[in-house]
C-alpha cells in the first residue's frame, strides 16, 4: 500500500497540520538517532492533533528515514512532541465531519498506515512521551518499540470510548498485548467511562505503557541517553506483558467479567465500549495485521455512527458551549463576593458552607434557629475539612484557613457585611419569605440574595423584598460537591448585576451554570419529573417495574428510573412529581403509590455491596392492582413524544435559550449520556420531534453518515 491510496483525503482540508521535523542526534556511543518532533506551530493553547495531512507528512518523513536506516545512516528513530504535548489525538474536527463512511474508513486506515511504520521499522523506534498523550497521540507511542515518559506529562489516556469511538490506530490490539488484559481493560474501557479518567505518568509507568520515566528538567536529554543504552543492548523488562498462561486462562474470562459489569453499569445502548471489548478479546491470539484490520472495520462503523456524532455534540457542549453561558449579562457587572452568609445549618446548608469556603476562599457565616443546630453545622463542616486533610487532599494550612473563615451566629446582624446570602431552609414559601425579609433588614443594598429552591417561584419569594431585583435562584444538585450543574434562575425582576454575580459565583465554585427562567422545575426537575412520572404511570397501570425499566432502556440513561428515584430519595421524588403536577396536571403525572413507596422506604432489593438485584416484594405489592396494560413499545413511544413536547414547550416559553442548553443541563445535572447527545439529537433522529412539531430541534440533524 502506498500513500497515494489515501489521495482523496488530501483535498479540501483546512487542517492545522502538525509537522514532523527531523533532527539527527549524535549519541555518546557514536550512533545516530533521528529525532522527529511533532509540532503544529501554535502555542500551548492549541495541542498538536493528527489529521490526514499530518499523517501524510509523518509517513513521508518516516519513509525517508527508513531509507537512511537501511543505509546504516541512522541507528534508531525517536518521536517526541512540542513542549507539553506529544499529541492530543486524532483531529476530531476532521473526524467529526467526515462526509462518508468511506472517508472515515480511509482516515482510520491512514492512521494505521502511518503509525504502523514505527512497528516495522528497520531500526529500533522510540517515543519520548514528553507531555499530553491522548488517543491517537498515545497510539503513536504504542506503535513504537520503546517508550519513555516525562514525570510531568499532564495526562495520558485512551479516551476514545468516552467519545463513542475506540482506540483503533493500534491501541485496541497493541495495548493488551503490552500491559496485559486487566490493565488494558482499565485504560481502554473503565477509565473513559469514569468521567474520562486519565493516567498520571507514574501510573503509565507502573502499568507498563512506558518503559522508563524521567524528570521533566532533562527529559529529552535523559531519554536520548536511555535510547543510546537500548541501542547498545539494554533490554527493558516488561513485567506486565501477557504470557501464554494469561492468554489461555485469564484473558477471555476477564473480558467476560468486564462485559457483564458494563451491562449492569451502562446498559447495552452504547456501541463503542462493546466494540472495544470485542477487539480486545480478539487481540489475544490474532496477528497484528488481523488486529489492525479489525480495528479498521469497527472504527469505520463507529466513526460513521449516530452515537459518535452525538458524543461530539455533547463533548462540544461541555467543553465550549458551557463556557459561554447563553443569556448571561456582562461578567464585569458582577460584584466581588467577599463574605458569604448561609441561612440554615442543616446538611444541605453545611455542604454549601464547605463548598463556598473551599472554592471562594472567603469568610462564610451560617445561622439557624438554635445554637445547637448552628454548632452541629459548624462541627460537620470542620469534620469534613479534617477528613480531607486525613485523606491528603487538603493541606493543614488550607484547613486552618477555611476553618478560621467559618463562623456561626444566632444574630442575623452578623450578616451585615455579606455580599451574597443563600438560604437552604425548608422548601415552603412562607418560611423562605420570612427568612429573606429578615435578611434584607440587615444586609447592604447591593448584597445578592440567592434561594436554593427547587420547586417554588423565585419571583413569589422575592415579592416580600424591598429590592426584589437582587434575588436569584441558585439551584444545586445533590450531592452538592459532586454534581457539576447549577441552574441559575433569572426571575422576572432579577437584575443583571445579580445574575452576573450568580454566574461569577457559580464559576468560582467550578460549576457549570445554565441560566433558566423562573419556571417550575427549571430544566432538570421538569424533564426528570416528566420521565419519572411516566414510569410511575406505567407502573400504576400494572406493568411490572422491570418491564417499565426495559421499556425506557433505549434512552440509554445511566440508571433505570427506579434506581434514580431511590438515589434522589423516594420522598423527594414524590415531591417533585407533585409540584410538577401542580404546574400542569394535564402533562404531568403524580401518584399516591409513590408516596406509599416512600413511606415503605424502598423499591429495589440489593446485594451486600449495594448493587440492585431485583424488586422488593412489598414494593411490588404496594403498586399492584393496575389493569390497563400498554405494550413496552407504546410506553416508550409516548414517553419520547412527551419529552419532545415538553422540551419544545420549554424552548417556546424561554425556560432556556436553546436545545443545547437543555442537553447540557441533562448531561451535567442528570448524567444523561454523551452518546445520545443528552436527549434532543436522539428525539430528532427517532422522529419524535417531527411528530410533535413537524420539525427537528437541530438543523441539520445530528446523525451519522
Amino acid at each position, binding site marked *: 500500500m502506498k500513500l497515494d491510496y489515501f489521495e482523496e483525503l488530501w483535498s479540501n482540508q483546512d487542517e492545522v497540520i502538525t509537522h514532523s*521535523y527531523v533532527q539527527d*542526534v549524535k549519541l555518546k556511543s557514536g550512533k545516530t538517532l533521528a*529525532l522527529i*518532533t511533532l509540532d503544529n506551530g501554535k502555542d500551548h493553547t492549541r495541542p498538536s492533533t493528527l489529521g490526514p495531512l499530518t499523517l501524510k507528512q509523518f509517513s513521508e518523513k518516516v519513509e525517508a528515514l527508513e531509507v537512511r536506516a537501511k543505509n546504516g545512516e541512522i541507528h534508531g528513530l525517536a518521536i517526541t512532541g512540542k*513542549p507539553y504535548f506529544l499529541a492530543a489525538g486524532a483531529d476530531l474536527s476532521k473526524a467529526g465531519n467526515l462526509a462518508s463512511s468511506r472517508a472515515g474508513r480511509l482516515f482510520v486506515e491512514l492512521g494505521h498506515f502511518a503509525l504502523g511504520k514505527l512497528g516495522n521499522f528497520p531500526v529500533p523506534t522510540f517515543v519520548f512521551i514528553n507531555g499530553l498523550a491522548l488517543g491517537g497521540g498515545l497510539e503513536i507511542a504504542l506503535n513504537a518499540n520503546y517508550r519513555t515518559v516525562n514525570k510531568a506529562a499532564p495526562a495520558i489516556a485512551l479516551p476514545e470510548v468516552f467519545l463513542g469511538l475506540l482506540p483503533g490506530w493500534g491501541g485496541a490490539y497493541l495495548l493488551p498485548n503490552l500491559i496485559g488484559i486487566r490493565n488494558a481493560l482499565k485504560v481502554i474501557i473503565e477509565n473513559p467511562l469514569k468521567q474520562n479518567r486519565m493516567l498520571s505518568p507514574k501510573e503509565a509507568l507502573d502499568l507498563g505503557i512506558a518503559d522508563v520515566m524521567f*524528570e521533566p*528538567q532533562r527529559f529529552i*536529554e535523559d531519554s*536520548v541517553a536511555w535510547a543510546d543504552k537500548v541501542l547498545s543492548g539494554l533490554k527493558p523488562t516488561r513485567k506486565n506483558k501477557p504470557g501464554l498462561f494469561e492468554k489461555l486462562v485469564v484473558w477471555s474470562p476477564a473480558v467476560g467479567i468486564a462485559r457483564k459489569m458494563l451491562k449492569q453499569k451502562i446498559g447495552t445502548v452504547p456501541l463503542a465500549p462493546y466494540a472495544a471489548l470485542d477487539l480486545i478479546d480478539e487481540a489475544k491470539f490474532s496477528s497484528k495485521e488481523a488486529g489492525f484490520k479489525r480495528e479498521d472495520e469497527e472504527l469505520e462503523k463507529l466513526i460513521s455512527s449516530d452515537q459518535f456524532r452525538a458524543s461530539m455534540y455533547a463533548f462540544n457542549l461541555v467543553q465550549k458551549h458551557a463556557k459561554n453561558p447563553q443569556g448571561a449579562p456582562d461578567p464585569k457587572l458582577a460584584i466581588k463576593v467577599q463574605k458569604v452568609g448561609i441561612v440554615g445549618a442543616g446538611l444541605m446548608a453545611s455542604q454549601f458552607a464547605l463548598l463556598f469556603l473551599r472554592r471562594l476562599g472567603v469568610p462564610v457565616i451560617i445561622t439557624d434557629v438554635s445554637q445547637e443546630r448552628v454548632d452541629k453545622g459548624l462541627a460537620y463542616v470542620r469534620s469534613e475539612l479534617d477528613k480531607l486533610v486525613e485523606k491528603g487532599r487538603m493541606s493543614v494550612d488550607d484547613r486552618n484557613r477555611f476553618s478560621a473563615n467559618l463562623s456561626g451566629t444566632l444574630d442575623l446582624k452578623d450578616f451585615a457585611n455579606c455580599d451574597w446570602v443563600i438560604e437552604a431552609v425548608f422548601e415552603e414559601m412562607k418560611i423562605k419569605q420570612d427568612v429573606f425579609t429578615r435578611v434584607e433588614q440587615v444586609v447592604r443594598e447591593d448584597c445578592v440574595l440567592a434561594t436554593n429552591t427547587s420547586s417554588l417561584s423565585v419571583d413569589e419569594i422575592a415579592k416580600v423584598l424591598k429590592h426584589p431585583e437582587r434575588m436569584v435562584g441558585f439551584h444545586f444538585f445533590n450531592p452538592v460537591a459532586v454534581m457539576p450543574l447549577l441552574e441559575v434562575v433569572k426571575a422576572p425582576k432579577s437584575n443583571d448585576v445579580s445574575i452576573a454575580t450568580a454566574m461569577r459565583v457559580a464559576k468560582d465554585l467550578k460549576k457549570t451554570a445554565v441560566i433558566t427562567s423562573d419556571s417550575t422545575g427549571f430544566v432538570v426537575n421538569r424533564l426528570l419529573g416528566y420521565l419519572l412520572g411516566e414510569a410511575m404511570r406505567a407502573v400504576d397501570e400494572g406493568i411490572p417495574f422491570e418491564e417499565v425499566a426495559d421499556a425506557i432502556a433505549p434512552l440509554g440513561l445511566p440508571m433505570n428510573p427506579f434506581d434514580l428515584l431511590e438515589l434522589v430519595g423516594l420522598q423527594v421524588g414524590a415531591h417533585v412529581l407533585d409540584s410538577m403536577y401542580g404546574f400542569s396536571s394535564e402533562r404531568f403525572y403524580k401518584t399516591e403509590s409513590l408516596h406509599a413507596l416512600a413511606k415503605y422506604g424502598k423499591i429495589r432489593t440489593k446485594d451486600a455491596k449495594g448493587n440492585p438485584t431485583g424488586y422488593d416484594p412489598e414494593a411490588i405489592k404496594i403498586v399492584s392492582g393496575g389493569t390497563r396494560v400498554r405494550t413496552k413499545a407504546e410506553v416508550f413511544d409516548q414517553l419520547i413524544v412527551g419529552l419532545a413536547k415538553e422540551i419544545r414547550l420549554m424552548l417556546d416559553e424561554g425556560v432556556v435559550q436553546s436545545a443545547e442548553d437543555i442537553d447540557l443541563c441533562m448531561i451535567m445535572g442528570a448524567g444523561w449520556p454523551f452518546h445520545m447527545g443528552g436527549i434532543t439529537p436522539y428525539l430528532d433522529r427517532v422522529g419524535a420531534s417531527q411528530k410533535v412539531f413537524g420539525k427537528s430541534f437541530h438543523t441539520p440533524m445530528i446523525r451519522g453518515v
Partner: protein
Amino acid sequence: MQNTYFVDGVRTPFGKAGEKGVYWNTRADDLIVKSMIGLLDRHPNLPKESIDDVAIAATTQTGDQGLTIGRTSTLLAGLPLSVPGFAIDRMCAGAMTAVTMTGSAIGVGAYDVVLAGGVEHMGRHPMGEGADPNPRFIAEKLVDPEALNMGNTAEKIHDRFPSLTKERADAFAVRSQQRAAAAYDKGYIQQDLVTISATTAEGVRVVDRDELLRPDSTIEGMKDLKTPFRAGGKVTAGNASPLTDGATISLLAGDQAVKQYGLKPRMRMVGFAFAGVEPEIMGIGPIPSTEKALKKAGLSIDDIGLFEINEAFAVQVLSFLEHFKIADDDKRVNAWGGAIAFGHPLASSGVRLMNQLSRQFEMQPDVRYGITSMCIGLGMGGTVIWENEFFDGKKK
C-alpha cells in the same frame, strides 16, 4: 578559616544569540537548570541538602533571568527547598564574582558547599536591555558616551596602544579558533559540556557542541571584515567574541566538605581582586586587577604557569600580554582557545575560564599557579589566582 576549592564545573554548549541561534526558543532559566542538574549528576555522593547557597549571575536580570534567578533555578531544578539561592551581577564577571563571593564565604567557614555560575541569553536579552543610565553620566562628563558601547572601548585600546595592531588582533583571533578546534579534536572541551535539548522551529535539537566555532578562520579571511564600531576601525566580528547564549556552573567546597563527601578538587582559590579603570577603555581592566591580586597573594607574574583570560576582544587580551611582556602566542595563555571561538555569554563566562584552567592543571602537574581574568563593562577587571591541586612539586 578553611581553604576554598574548585571541585568541578560544567556548562551548556554555547549558542549563537538571536533568531538563528539554537537556543532562540529556550529559556535562560532552563539553561542554568539543566546545567545545575548535569553538574550534580556527576556527584551522586554529595547530598543535595549540603549545598549552603546557590549564586547565579546574569547581567540583565529581568524576564527569564529575573526574579532572583539563583532561587528560581534551585526550585526549577528540584533541589531541596532548604537550599537557598541568590542572583548576582557584575556584568561579564558575574559568574567570576559568584565564585569569589561564595568562595570567600567558604573561606570564613560560613559555607561548606556552594554552586556558583551564571547565565546569559543575549538573544532574549540584548546588552543594555531596559537600561536607564543616569543623565549625569553624560551631562557631567563622568564617562565618555562611547563607554557604554563595548566595541568602542575596544577600538579605544587600539587608539591608546598603537603597537597593538589590527594584524596582531586578527592573528590572535585565528589562533584562538585553531586552539579551540584542536582542543575539541582531543575531547578536552566536551568533557565538561552538558547536553541540552532545545526546542526550535524545526523540531527539538540535542545540542552537544558549541555553535559558534569557526575552525576554518584565516587571517586572510579576516582582513576585510567590516568594522562595525567605527569607519576605519580595527575591531571586527572576527577579532571579537560573538553575541552568545549559554550558562555555566561550578561546585565549590571547603576543606571540611571535601573530606566529608570525598570530593576531588581540581584547584584551590589562592586569592582574587577586582579593580576599576576608565569606563571607556574597560578592556585593560585585567591589568590592575591582576597586579592587585598578585600583590595580595604575595606572588609575581612569573609564578603564574597558566592563564585563562576572557577574550571579549583580541586587542584587550593583547594589551594584557604586552603589559606583562608575554608573547601573543604564548602557549600558557588560553591554550584551548577562548571566547572569540566559544562565545561570550556575558555573566556566564567566568566559570568557563575556571573549568578550562582546572582541566589544564589536571594535565600539567608541573604547574603550580594559574589565573583566570576578565575585563568588565563600565571599566573594571577581575582576576582570580588558583593553585593546582595536581601540582607534584616538580617544576619543569
